[in-house]
């Protein structure tokens, strides 16, 4: 397993990892550098359950190495790969998980918990502003999709 874990990553490198993710592509590094210290490194063996459907979501995950299967019972909804993110909305609210997540291979993930994120948002409004921007972009994209679908 330890072969997956990188040498100790610098905060600087964690920022670069965040920046490489689709959801943070538009976020300035100055904001991501506030978020990077919250990234906890976690390793999971193949088959390990990350969370189950119905659990209260209180963190988001970034896949650094490996694959994660998102499933409802035995039905696979998606297999997420490196540089993909899941559970990001749980950073902002505490809804129950709509599906389960299991390590599809040995995985090295970064986990960001809701609680320290809230604390960060309280002291750094620009982080909240950055997240609001991301949500707005997603909402716009969804609206455009809906309009296109209705045409």
């Amino acid at each position, binding site marked *: 397993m330890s072969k997956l874990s990188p040498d100790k990553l610098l905060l*600087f490198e964690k920022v670069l990892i965040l920046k490489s993710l689709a959801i943070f592509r538009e976020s300035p590094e*100055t904001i991501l550098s506030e978020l990077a210290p919250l990234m906890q490194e976690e390793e999971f063996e193949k088959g390990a359950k990350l969370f189950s459907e119905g659990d209260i979501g209180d963190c988001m995950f970034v896949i650094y190495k490996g694959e994660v299967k998102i499933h409802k019972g035995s039905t696979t909804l998606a297999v997420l790969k490196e540089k993909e993110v899941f559970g990001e909305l749980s950073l902002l609210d505490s809804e129950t998980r709509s599906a389960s997540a299991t390590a599809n291979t040995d995985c090295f993930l970064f986990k960001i918990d809701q609680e320290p994120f809230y604390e960060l948002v309280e*002291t750094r409004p620009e982080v909240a502003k950055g997240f609001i921007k991301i949500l707005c972009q997603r909402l716009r994209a969804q609206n455009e999709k809906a309009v296109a679908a209705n045409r």
Partner: protein
Amino acid sequence: MKISRSLLRALNVRRDEWWLVQKLFLLQFFQGAGIAFFFTASFSRFLEHYPVSDLAYVFIISSILLWAAGFFYGKLEHRVSSSRLSVIITIVLAASMILFRAGAAYITDDWFFFVMLAWFNVLYLLNNLMFWGMASQLYDVRQSKRLFGVISAGDIPAKFIGYSVAVLIVAITGTANLLLVGFLCIGLSFPFLKKVLQAEKSTKGHHADSSKHGPVLNTIVKDFTANILIRRVAVLSLIVSACIVLINFGFYSEVKHAYKNDVEFARFIAFFLAIARLIALLIKILVTSRLLYWLGNRAALVITPLLLIILITALLLTNVLTYNTKMVLYIFGLSAIVVDVLNSAINSPVLLTLMQPLSTLERLRAHNIVKGIMDPFAYLFSGLFLLVFMKLKIFDLQTLSYVLLGLAVAWIMGIFRVHQQYLKTLIKTISSRYFSQEEFNLYDPAARELIEEKINTGTELEVLYILRTLGSRSGTESNRLIIHALHHPSVTVVSEALRLVSELHIKEAESWLSAIIENHPADIIRGEAIKVLAEIAFQDAIIVPLMQSPDALIRNSSIISILNHSQVSLNIEDAEKRIKEFLVSADPAEKKEALIMLCETGKGHFDNELVSLLNDPDPILRINAIKAMGYHPSQVCLEQLIKKIDDHEKDVIEALIIAREKSLPYLKSRILENKCPAKQKENLLHATGRIGGKAAHEILMALISELPGFEPYIIKVLHRCHFKSDKTNQPFVESLIRFQLINAATILHMQKKIVTQKEKYAVLSGALDLELQEIRETLLFLFSFIYDRDKISKIKAAIEINKKETNANAIELVDMTVKKEFANPFNAAFEFGDLEHRCDLLKSLFPKDIFPDINAILTDILSDTKTSYNIWTKSCSLYFTKKLNHKVEAPLIHKYLQSENPLLKETAVFAAAIN
């Protein structure tokens, strides 16, 4: 075609724009030459047969033909694609040459000569509509300001060459065969048209949504009446065209008067036109864009009518003092040259620029109106004017001069009106993308009834929305509706209505409030009603007995109300005593209640009790005590409060904000303490800004110099608290602007160095982009201290959209709002476009080649002396120093080993490991 940097600079064209600029230039060159040959042929043939005075009929025929052409153009514009329309127009130009050549061989009737000369105006119109239609779609407002002068300049050498060649070859070919040369020229323009149309395809086609619009004429009329900018530009264009037609007529009459021989006459005209075009070319290429850059639109436009007034006045004086035919001819010639040259070199491109803030469709319609409707009107007006005056035999040079003087004055007035509307349209264009609000009118009885009905029957949310809207206005009707909402069954609605009664001090609500205190089922509402009643009409008789109420909410409300509003000292003392009893009570709940009460009144003296509670073992009581101290900011309380900042930063800062001006000295001294962490400094600066007011502004301004590295943050705080500079501090604000502009230039030069290895240094380049964005934001904040804050906010919002068109509009607004010393370098630094060109424009701010290599850039960033860079930029520099083995002096790295920022400190440790 390769082009040197210096030529691009001279033309004010950016490298990435050059390909299209040259194609447009050549397109206009060949079509312009073709039309010049047509004019020479038709004009000389006309003058060969008819006197100059018959030009009046040509003007009238021109107006009819131009209207017809404009009408058919408009029809076609809505039926075929823009590219097909351009091809059709070019074919019409070519076909006209051939058909009139054939006609010249067989038709000798009078009408043919008149129509042929009038047809020149149609060709000129069609070419204009097509060319400017394409150009206005290809370029945004900023580009058009720079480029319209250059691209349209193709027309001038074309005419220069056309007229010169015509003089030389006319003896061999005959006038009619000049039309064949014209046909050849139009044919040569086809390959360039094809290339331009390819480029146009990549931008949004303006005909794409044409089907959604109504009949052409209706739309044009609607635009003319509805859009003030279009109307004003159209009227101005009419005045300008009439001036040109009349002055040319006067000039040709004088020429004909001076030169009896037709050959001499034709040569003089051709020579005159060739010289005029040469001057126009030079002005257009070398002067127009710079003139606009330095003078702005309005002053540039005023030059022509002003010169016209001077020349016509000179003409009138010459006429009165000594009538000299030659002198009159020369002055008229000079006036014709001035108007002709400046109109094509400055007026036409600038007028088109002024229409750029309109939407693409409106812009095209405006252009159609100006060219397709106003030009014919100008011809009709001039033709009729000349005919009537000649028939009445009152036409002479003096009459014409007075008419021209009148038109020139109207011209200047028109410029001012157009410019005023241009500014409004520009602001509207930017703001309409963000704001849209409908308000109801309370003076309308129907609207009032509807609102009242809605308050009775609407949902809680609907009534709250109505109350919020009512709260933003005051007046009997609005107050009556707010009182009406006090009957609503929802506690939330009544609570909001009570808040508004208090805020708007609605005295008429008194009896309703008494009734609520007596009867309302919700204690919370009764408690609120006591406070509101006390505020609008305090009555000891009603409020004081409530102090004994067994209900805590009612009791507390009455205590607060007495402290705040009673004039009877015995009652006040009693209320104060009750609070003190609670503050020292053994029951923590009573202590908490008392602390909450203290947050609703600033009256009374509770220092000792509060200081004691500040150290209470119960953390909730401590926090409540901190908050209460904000409302009772005695020296003792503030001194104790600031001591608790490290343990309860957020609460203490909130309390200091509540204490307002009294806390400012404490805030300042804490900010300047060395042990105060950077993040806390920012929070305290923010708090100072939230307190606001003159004293806070003065402290923040002083801190800009005293707190290096925090300038951008303090400037942002000053902006948030609506700081406006005055005569005393404006020079300081201006020095900050200059400093930030130099910073922007520095970073652009760093970018220029990095751009060749962009992939390798992408992260560093991204960090510098962020620096540049921050500088831009800081500069806009600084501008808002001196100039119109609303306009600057709109500029900021438009720039943040990060689209070429909105950026161009914003930059244009900067140009018009901010003084040139700042606007020009700001625009150069932040306008979209070629980096090298932007650096060239900023060279006066920044010495060339100060960054010979990347090492120099990294050293500058890490030395952090002249400019304070972001943590991220410094971390990038540290990281790349190690990763890419750059040579940076060790002390520059080691100084960050003790940084309080974890990212910077960790990256410095990483970098120091090998350095």
